[in-house]
């Protein structure tokens, strides 16, 4: 049998682009779960919320979905701060984050999903923009703009956040807060406030991730669930809280998923992420790229 090289290369390329997009979806969880130790399993629900806002801005006002997501960024930031405030008062200060904290986010996930179903129904929604229909060709390699634009947006966001975390005082404080809150206090920074800022940022990334999600695929309220596993798989595989590791894990997952769906059919691809996650947890819980 002739091995379909062009099919394989195309699967690799689109997997790479998809991986970049997965990084944008995961970065919020990388901040909240990886750095702050807050298991925000509702994060994908906020991403879907971002998708629907981009959809409304696009279909009603005719705005570009990515521009719309940048415009609502402050709103998402404030929403994140508000949620962290509730979480902080109700769970962290009582020292009761495990069961009830998890259930809190699970409830939020469910409320967001059901509300979207009640308002928009379960139809698939999509956005329109002039550049989305085009595809670049290099020999037998196809580069659909539908995947290239999200990839670029995601990389820009990732680099920006990496610089912010490494160079600014608040960024370094965020990295420190889960490790040693007391030392942070001695640096005259309030851990609670730093966490609030960081959680606000993590929810803010959901706005942009949502916009590029709806560029890549049509969205309906419950698809967020498929992303829960992907997001946590990537986050754990990448070694919690490290952006470069996370990007590598995202690309790895994107490529494996893309190859699976090209050669075995798309109905198998959801299992790939979860299979990866279970395997990582079982074999190397500190992550493939994490420090042991």
């Amino acid at each position, binding site marked *: 049998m002739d091995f379909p090289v062009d099919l394989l290369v195309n699967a690799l390329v689109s997997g790479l682009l998809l991986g970049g997009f997965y990084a944008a979806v995961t970065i919020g969880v990388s901040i909240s779960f990886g750095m702050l130790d807050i*298991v925000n*399993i509702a994060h994908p629900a906020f991403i879907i919320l971002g998708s629907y806002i981009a959809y409304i801005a696009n279909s009603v006002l005719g705005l570009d979905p990515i521009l719309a997501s940048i415009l609502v960024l402050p709103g998402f930031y404030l929403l994140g701060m508000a949620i962290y405030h*509730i979480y902080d008062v*109700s*769970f962290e200060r*009582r020292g*009761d984050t*495990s*069961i*009830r904290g*998890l*259930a*809190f986010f*699970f*409830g*939020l996930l*469910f*409320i967001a999903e*059901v*509300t979207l*179903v*009640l308002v928009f129904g379960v139809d698939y929604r999509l956005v329109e923009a002039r550049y989305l229909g085009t595809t670049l060709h290099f020999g037998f390699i196809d580069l659909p703009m539908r995947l290239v634009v999200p990839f670029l947006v995601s990389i820009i966001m990732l680099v920006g956040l990496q610089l912010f975390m490494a160079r600014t005082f608040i960024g370094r404080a965020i990295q420190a807060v889960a490790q040693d809150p007391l030392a942070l206090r001695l640096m005259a920074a309030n851990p609670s406030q730093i966490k609030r800022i960081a959680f606000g940022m993590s929810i803010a990334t959901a706005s942009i991730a949502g916009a590029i999600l709806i560029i890549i695929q049509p969205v309906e309220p*419950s698809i967020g*669930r*498929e992303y*829960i*596993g992907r997001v*946590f*798989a990537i986050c*754990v595989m990448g070694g919690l809280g490290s952006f470069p590791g996370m990007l590598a894990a995202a690309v790895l997952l994107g490529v494996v998923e893309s190859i699976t769906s090209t050669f075995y059919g798309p*109905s*198998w691809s*959801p*299992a790939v*992420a*979860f*299979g990866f*996650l*279970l395997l990582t*947890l*079982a074999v190397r*819980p500190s992550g493939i790229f994490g420090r042991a």
Partner: protein
Amino acid sequence: MRNWTFVSVLIVVAFATFFGTRLVGNSYAFFAGYVVLQYIVLATAWNILGGYTGYVNFGTAAFFALGAYSTVVLHKTVPELPLPLMIAVGGIVSGAVGIGTGYLTLRLRGTFFSIATLAMAVVMQTLVTNWSFVGGARGVYVIRPDESPIFDGDYIEYLFLVMLALSVIAVAVARAIEHSRLGYGFAAIRDDELAAEASGVPTLRLKLIATALSGGFMGMAGAPLPYYVTYLDPSSGFSLTYAVNTIAMPLIGGTSMWLGPVLGAVLLGTLQQAATVTISSALSLLIVGVLLVVFVIAAPKGIIGWFRR
């Protein structure tokens, strides 16, 4: 109260429930009651792991659907098998999967176990969706017999009775655990796992026992489902509704004792049945989500926490 006294009281209550429901004279009462009972089993099962040992299982739907699909397989291969045996098989299958998942992830921090159960649910759903013998994505039809096999009445009355028996067993087991060495071991894990481990409590083994019991009961609760719904497809069997309900019920009722999940299941289950009939099913799910969030924030000990000081 001694365990056997307690079980006798439970059985009396169960019979009163059954004959009381018969007095209503409307088979809808059995259809609605079945769902509430099913949630008593699920919530009690969840609480054995979640409430007693403190490990959150988001994969209720997976254990539940595994039980249901094992019945589908048995129905297609040995249809003459009586329902209680099918339930036993469903329980064993789900319990075994519980042990497997637990063995892989229970040595890690609790949150990893929770995320892994979420992941397991999707893996299972993908496997079932791609398995055409049990209907694949199209779903499968299961013909429900007309008559109850053991007494004179409709088959739904039989299903109701079976689920009633199952909830009696689940509640009795949960209560017996509370005041046994097993229960004290579970509580030690919940309160301080490191200290428990250091004092010689075999934490991993106890956690595996809890996961197996919990998963097994969930599978048993799911096993009669194909006969109840008569049409089963992966997206309804693995519905997240089961997961959110089974978490909401114990947390609303109170996780510290057997009565909590039962209270939560009866209240929330009845409320949902009423809301589904009168308003809409989507709205009734919203109510569950909102109640869950409100309770974990405002009443961390649940309803029974209001009465116990």
